[in-house]
């Protein structure tokens, strides 16, 4: 039948869309880059704090651990779409607009902070207590213990955590995109769903599949190289 025609047509349509696909990929990249950076810079230390304030750890502190843990759970229990809507005022305040990838990065970052904090906390828990104690016995300062022992020993797990975070937030960024953030998910919905150009939808999903595979592969590879256990 005219299947081949359709395929040729589809490819032609896609190639016409190439500039927009590039644009969408760049937007997705920007949303992720901002969200992940904030997650690392804010969520990372928060995760370390969660870990160190646990009972039996270096800075065991029930109150701090309770409050931080409660906050992390609170943010994480919001469905992302609701978090996004409720953060609209904050987004407007910070970015001056609620449209575009930078605006979408605000709720993404907000959700990524506690997510990454928990991942970091879980990863650090795998370090044997005795190794940290050995460093204490050698006269290491808290900063030295954090930088040299915790991060050094957990580095492979931290890379794996970052891989998980990146992949989760690739899909969150698609949601954020639909509500005005742009990006690959937004493109898929606009053409594929609203204009019935199924080939665009399929192509965008395939693109996301490929990106996820690449991220996972790179993450696994790096983690394996860093892990000497």
């Amino acid at each position, binding site marked *: 039948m005219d299947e081949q025609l359709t395929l040729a047509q589809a490819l032609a349509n896609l190639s016409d869309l190439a500039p927009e696909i590039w644009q969408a990929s760049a937007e997705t990249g920007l949303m992720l880059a901002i969200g992940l950076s904030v997650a690392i810079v804010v969520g990372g230390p928060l995760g370390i704090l969660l870990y160190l304030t646990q009972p039996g750890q270096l800075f065991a502190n029930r109150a701090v651990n309770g409050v931080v843990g409660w906050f992390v759970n609170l943010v994480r229990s919001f469905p992302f779409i609701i978090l996004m809507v409720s953060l609209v005022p904050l987004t407007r305040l910070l970015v001056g607009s609620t449209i575009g990838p930078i605006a979408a990065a605000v709720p993404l970052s907000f959700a990524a902070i506690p997510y990454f904090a928990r991942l970091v906390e879980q990863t650090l828990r795998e370090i*044997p207590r*005795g*190794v940290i*104690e*050995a*460093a*204490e*016995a*050698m*006269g*290491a*300062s808290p900063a*030295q213990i954090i930088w*040299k*022992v915790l991060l*050094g*020993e957990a*580095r*492979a797990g931290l890379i794996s955590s970052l891989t998980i975070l990146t992949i989760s937030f690739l899909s969150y960024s698609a949601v954020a995109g639909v509500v005005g953030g742009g990006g690959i998910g937004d493109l898929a919905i606009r053409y594929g769903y609203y204009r019935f150009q199924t080939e665009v939808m399929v192509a965008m999903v395939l693109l996301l599949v490929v990106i996820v595979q690449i991220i996972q592969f790179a993450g696994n590879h790096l983690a394996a190289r*860093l*892990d*000497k*256990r």
Partner: protein
Amino acid sequence: MIHLKNVHKRFRRPEGGWFDAVRDTTLHIKAGEIFGLIGFSGAGKSTLLRLINLLERPDHGSVNVDGRDLTGLSAAELRRARQNIGMVFQQFNLMANRTVAANIAFPLEIAGWSRADIDARVAECLDIVGLADRAGHYPAQLSGGQKQRVGIARALAPRPHVILADEPTSALDPKTTQSILDCLQDINARFGVTVVIVTHEMHVIRSICHRAALLDAGEVVELLEVTDKQVAARSALAKSLLEVA
């Protein structure tokens, strides 16, 4: 060298109430000796050892090492004092992502040594424990005995006056045990490092210790003297430990 005066340590029981792990204990360990802490499981040996470098803080009593009262030091001063007290662990507690050389370098990095000094000292320590050919290996690539040698080299690296060892051979087979004990004895003899070693085996005491304290229920119940690898025991508890050995 090490003076524990009336040190007392109690722990909160998970089910409520308190447990006295070390009871009002006084102990003097001389410079340059290998001193054993022996007793059955739960006697308080590890707790007493950990009181010496203040990994456990006594509820009362004083801990004096090398002429300094550790309990009165600030956090920063205590960290410096700890660089003078090496520690060796039953489970080795090496950093898995660091090579053998980098593990031994760790306490020197902490103490702020220069790279050149660190490299020289690490090479020296690797030689002392006989692992010069393993510098670039990771702990996962070593046998238990080799891991413990790294642990000893790490403890020795900052030229401490004291090394504390908590059952350093309990995870090892008898032959490896002997080689690790010989290694500790060698270090004591060559560098005059005071060694405090926790064990539940009289064999360890006979083999390398000059003196030992027998602990029971958080108290020193007998001081044991070792002469010609023989332990003179008076208490029934000490005799029972001798029989096991």
